[in-house]
């Protein structure tokens, strides 16, 4: 990168956390350089300090967190020593930033155009009409359709992808030397993510901007990075060019992270049973929202005529983006939501026709694992109690249920003595194991897993997927596996159904759907996977 000048250099930067945190420093002795016209990806799992680094450069650290050593050199001056007034000149003009969640990062009460225009009114003396022209040009630049309408819109009136485009337009308004992007695509769907990554890449190349791109996803790294910095516990463990780090990782932690990325290649197909344990036919669910006396009522078809079958002992993956109806379908299957029409036949019983009370008595046959390991466990109950709840509800004596729960702990890879602890004392992965144990306590025939690994770090994700695969073998479970991540689906599913706008557009054996997709949407999904080539090739 010698032909480009260095824009930002961190020199042995250390950031101190307030007392009572789990470690003394958020960052320790971090040194790195970013040159113009390059994208440097900072990768790490949650708690690695990667976001803290971005905030330190902007000097936007939380109150008790302080920079206690090192320098941040930007355009020949040390930002650590800059006054607040000097920092305000750098922010927005020299260094701009985009954030993970564009909905909360934009002021909900002011229009998009107004918020972009503010960049000019803070840092330039342009007239109102000049600013207006520039705002519209920027919105066109980030390829928002109909920039005039978008400028007058409020954030809630745009889609997630458009909001992130607006954020990017705002960040690039004054042609900053450095753009810091803090997980800018994490909250977006995979197809939108691909578009936003391409947009950032295009704009960066056109403007020769230096970009610090923070992410947890090696797929994104493979897609966009020129150079890579890997962080763990506030320390840089490895840095180098993208090719070096991705294909010849030196540090053990980097290797572990890359190995944990699920490859987009289905394992060899397993033999499937001839009989179906679960048959879903023509299931539909439509939401109708209020409206006074029928006025303003909105009708949203969430699931449209879905028919699927699950062979005994197999795993059926339901894949789709947000709003595709996959979660509604999952909740219809366990009757958390009542489907409008259709039948859901489990072992000869039609679940769609049962009364609520019958469902309540029969629930042990079909159980669910939830997405959010923090929200899915009642914070006021001990772990063993949580797992024992199901059997107790169905009439098991309390002492026996608790004893059984402890045995289940061993099965899902937890210490049986941990049963006396409360959920907040466990890590995310451990909580998900508790959730799994809770579902298994009722010895279900079918397990519906709704995005069970989406909220977990990649390395933990891999462990939980492995556990699920083992249990499936051991207990002869049949699983319906809901996910937005095709790489995860490829790992564990025998069959895959792709959903879009409430309907199944394609389904079949996992190897066939991923290897030879028929529907254009499936192809678009597969093409959108960040770092596609890398994901297909890299070895586990």
């Amino acid at each position: 990168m010698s032909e480009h000048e260095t824009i930002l250099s961190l020199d042995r930067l250390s950031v101190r956390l307030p007392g009572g945190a789990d470690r003394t420093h958020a960052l320790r002795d971090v040194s790195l350089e970013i040159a113009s016209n390059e994208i440097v990806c900072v990768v790490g799992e949650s708690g690695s300090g990667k976001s803290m680094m971005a905030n330190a450069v902007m000097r936007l650290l939380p109150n008790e967190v302080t920079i206690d050593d090192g320098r941040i050199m930007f355009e020949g001056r040390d930002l650590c020593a800059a006054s607040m007034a000097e920092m305000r000149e750098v922010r927005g003009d020299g260094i701009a930033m985009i954030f993970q969640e564009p909905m909360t990062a934009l002021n909900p009460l002011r229009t998009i155009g107004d918020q972009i225009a503010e960049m000019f009114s803070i840092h330039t003396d342009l007239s109102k009409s000049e600013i207006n022209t520039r705002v519209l040009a920027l919105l066109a630049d980030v390829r928002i359709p109909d920039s005039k309408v978008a400028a007058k819109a409020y954030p809630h009136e745009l889609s997630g992808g458009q909001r992130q485009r607006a954020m990017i337009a705002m960040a690039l308004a004054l042609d900053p030397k450095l753009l810091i992007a803090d997980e800018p695509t994490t909250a977006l769907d995979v197809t939108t993510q691909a578009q936003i990554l391409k947009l950032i890449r295009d704009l960066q190349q056109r403007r020769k901007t230096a970009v610090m791109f923070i992410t947890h996803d090696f797929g994104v790294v493979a897609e966009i990075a020129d150079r890579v910095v890997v962080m763990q516990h506030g320390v840089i463990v490895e840095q180098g060019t993208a090719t070096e780090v991705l294909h010849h990782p030196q540090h053990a932690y980097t290797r572990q992270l890359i190995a944990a990325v699920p490859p987009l290649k289905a394992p060899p197909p397993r033999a499937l049973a001839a009989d179906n344990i679960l048959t879903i036919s023509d299931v539909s669910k439509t939401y109708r929202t209020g409206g006074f006396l029928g006025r303003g009522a909105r009708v949203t078809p969430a699931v449209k005529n879905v028919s699927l079958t699950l062979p005994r002992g197999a795993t059926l993956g339901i894949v789709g983006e947000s709003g595709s109806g996959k979660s509604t379908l999952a909740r219809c299957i366990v009757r958390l939501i009542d489907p409008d029409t259709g039948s859901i036949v489990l072992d000869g019983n039609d679940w769609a026709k049962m009364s609520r009370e019958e469902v309540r008595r029969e629930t042990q046959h079909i159980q669910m694992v939830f997405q959010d390991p923090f929200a899915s466990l009642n914070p006021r109950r001990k772990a063993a109690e949580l797992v024992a709840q199901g059997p107790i509800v169905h009439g098991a004596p309390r002492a026996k249920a608790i004893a059984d729960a402890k045995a289940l702990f061993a099965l899902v890879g937890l210490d049986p003595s941990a049963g006396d602890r409360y959920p907040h004392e466990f890590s995310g992965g451990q909580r998900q194991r508790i959730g799994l144990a809770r579902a298994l306590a009722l010895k279900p025939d079918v397990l519906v897993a709704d995005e069970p690994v989406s909220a977990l770090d990649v390395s933990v994700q891999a462990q939980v997927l492995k556990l699920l695969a083992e249990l499936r073998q051991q207990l002869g479970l049949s699983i319906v596996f809901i996910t937005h991540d095709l790489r995860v689906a490829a790992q564990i599913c025998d069959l895959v159904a792709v959903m879009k706008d409430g309907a199944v557009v394609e389904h079949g054996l996992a190897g066939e759907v991923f290897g030879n997709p028929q529907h254009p949407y499936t192809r678009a999904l597969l093409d959108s996977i960040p770092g596609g080539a890398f994901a297909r090739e890299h070895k586990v």
Partner: protein
Amino acid sequence: MRILSLAGRRLAASIPTLVLILIGVFLLLQFAPGDTVDAMMAQMGGGDAATAKELRKFYGLDLSIPAQLGNYLWRLVRLDLGFSSIYGKPVASVIIERLPPTILLMTASLSFAFFFGLLFGVIAARGVNRWPDTLISTLGLIFYATPSFWFGLMAIVVFSVYLQWLPPGGFEDIGTVRTGIWRMLDIASHLVLPTLTLGLIFLAIYLRIMRASMLEVLNLDYVRTARAKGLDETRVVTRHVLRNALLPMVTLIGLQAGTMLGGSVVVESVFSLPGLGRLAYESVVQRDLNTLLGIVFVSALLVISVNFVVDLIYARLDPRITAEG
């Protein structure tokens, strides 16, 4: 336009609430010992049973309770609130005479509480956990704990008895006849102490809410975005924090309109203001149930109209509201 239709729908939705209140209170009053005729007879210094029966028949009090309720509601539709035997006038005209002082008092107190609550709330939040914040928060707690009628009495002792700056009570000086601007000034001077007395507790509530909501908004992502743009702290507050932080306070005005009207009963009694609140007190003491029911109706209407205005303001402040409609 969408804002108006939204507020209109909210207004329509409050009609069942109003009917519910009227039916509830009407039935409640049937349990009251003694009726209007008893009160009238007492007023006249007693009378025989035959006259009482005659009068009951005249006022329709001999009918069954559902029939009486039906009659009452039907009269209400025609804006007839009945007759006050104590005042010897239709209830509607008694109430209309008493309305202006109460509305003036509520408007003044609300403006006072809102303005200073906002100001002190912002100052406290800007210097959180430093001395201005500690001082303001402590004063807020003390104001909140002060019984309003007691504060009113003490204010009379200090400002009217000792310093003799302000009149101790009444709506205007009835000794001299004034007109125009002088009359307004006279009324204003009579309203200073009642306004402070009624507004104090709401000032305390608003400043606490404003402080909390400022602190909450200051922690939100878009405030970080604003700082990352290079805005200075003052402009971060005026352009990005204030309007968002105002929303809970506006909601609170609507929720507490009833409480404020209730507070005026006590304050008007302390300062002998001839307002609606004092009328409510008098009609309880004199067992003038017709008037009491009329007051219930009018105060519910007042609260509903305050909420209507609050809805309009809220919808103007928050563009998300009309989208959900």
